[in-house]
């Protein structure tokens, strides 16, 4: 889903940068205020971890494999979509400048799709669903929907750019990410959240332990 350079004309790419920039600044502000400033380094190591997580192949079926984006996972753990935006911005910056994966001019659009849209839609879907369906299904649907909407946004941007027609683009990106997103993003996020809840429940903003009387570990540190 990384849009490369030259797939979006320069003027439009600037608009996406201008749209993404306030979100990046807000996410920095969030990190400084909410994470009591000093904890900011944790996000740096976490971004490196997400970078590695994105390199893991996940079998989708019929010989294709996908990988996670991870914005929703980070957002759910920290209990806010801003965490997803900040971590994904860091990851996309390194991917763009060190690997040429995703463009420099189009990075604004990529941050908007994978960090902002995916993070916000995914996280708030999860929040609305978690009371009625339980946390793991909410995490699954949230991550799935987050990825799907960001793929749709990507298809629309490519259409506005005049690079790819709208309807075939929506069909291709939509169906592809509907399938990839269910297994690669939804299921894996759900399993990963459950595993984190077991090993380090103190990391999670929300209480994921089914029984409230269950003894929670003290945060070491």
């Amino acid at each position, binding site marked *: 889903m990384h849009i*490369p350079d030259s797939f979006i004309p320069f003027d439009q790419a600037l608009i996406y940068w201008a749209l993404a920039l306030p979100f990046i600044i807000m996410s920095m502000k969030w990190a400084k205020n909410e994470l009591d400033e000093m904890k900011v380094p944790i996000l740096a190591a976490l971004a490196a971890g997400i970078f590695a997580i994105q390199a893991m192949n996940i*079998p989708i079926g019929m010989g294709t494999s996908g990988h996670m984006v991870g914005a929703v996972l980070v957002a759910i753990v920290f209990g806010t979509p801003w965490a997803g935006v900040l971590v994904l911005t860091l990851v996309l910056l390194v991917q763009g400048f060190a690997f*040429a994966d995703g463009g420099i001019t189009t990075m604004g659009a990529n941050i908007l799709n994978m960090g902002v849209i995916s993070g916000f839609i995914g996280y708030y879907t999860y929040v609305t669903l978690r009371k009625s369906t339980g946390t793991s299904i909410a995490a699954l649907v949230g991550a799935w929907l987050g990825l799907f909407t960001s793929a749709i946004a990507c298809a629309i941007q490519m259409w506005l750019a005049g690079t790819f027609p709208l309807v075939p683009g929506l069909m291709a990106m939509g169906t592809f990410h509907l399938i990839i997103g269910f297994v690669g993003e939804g299921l894996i996020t759900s399993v990963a959240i459950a595993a984190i809840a077991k090993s380090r429940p103190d990391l999670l903003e929300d209480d994921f332990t089914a029984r409230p009387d269950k003894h929670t570990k003290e945060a070491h540190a």
Partner: protein
Amino acid sequence: MVTLTDIERESYKNSPIHRLDPRIKLLFVLAVIIYVVSLPRIHEKNLVRLLAIEVYLLLLVLVAGLDLKYFILRILAILPFGLGIALIQPFLRPSFVENYTPYPLDLPFGLSITYEGLVFGSTLLAKFLVCITAVILLSSTTRLRDMVAAADRIGIPGEFTLLLSMMVRYLFLFWAVLKRIRVAQETRLFNIWNRGVPRKWILKQIGHSVSSIFVRSYEQGEKTYISMLCRGYGSGHEKAYYRAKIRAPDLLFLLLSTGIIACIHIFV
């Protein structure tokens, strides 16, 4: 496959290009990319201009003494992402073109290609190729931490570059963690395509690996943060970098490059 360590090996080489100030290289690559991206989408001189820039970039690769096999592998690793969309263009009718002329070519299945689509597709591919060549040249001749230092000096806010510099440091650690997980899985004959075990179980294992990397990176962040506190880290922290002066070769390179791009634009 090109891995993170290959990139590091190449960027630690020593050549006139490697020795240039990272700020200058960053500026140069940005200028090339912006010039290339803002070329008109359909223009008869596009391909020649893009070819000329590509040749210049490849000359720089030779001067930098990069391993050519490595360089080509890196381009090939990135190419498929855009190649598909560029190749399909001749069969599409670009929406921004009012009148298109069908290409006089008979194809089966009632497919037809348009002249504009062909030109647009080839330009798109050429632009894409030049852009990734420029970025790969930058990342193979500049160490990651130098790039972050350059971003800091250019005026990116300090809090942000602090995050970036720490992330770059731990990139290699978690790359190694990922590698170890893969090796450990292989020794246990874990294969994501194994049909002998339920898919659900495979996905669960992958989910656990993801959470393991997540928790490890979080804990690494905590540990680092505590040791930073022990060493007196506070809000008034200062970062120290070596050599910050832009010198004559840097300026010469910048002048030469802008001159060449201008010449390509005017004379080609």
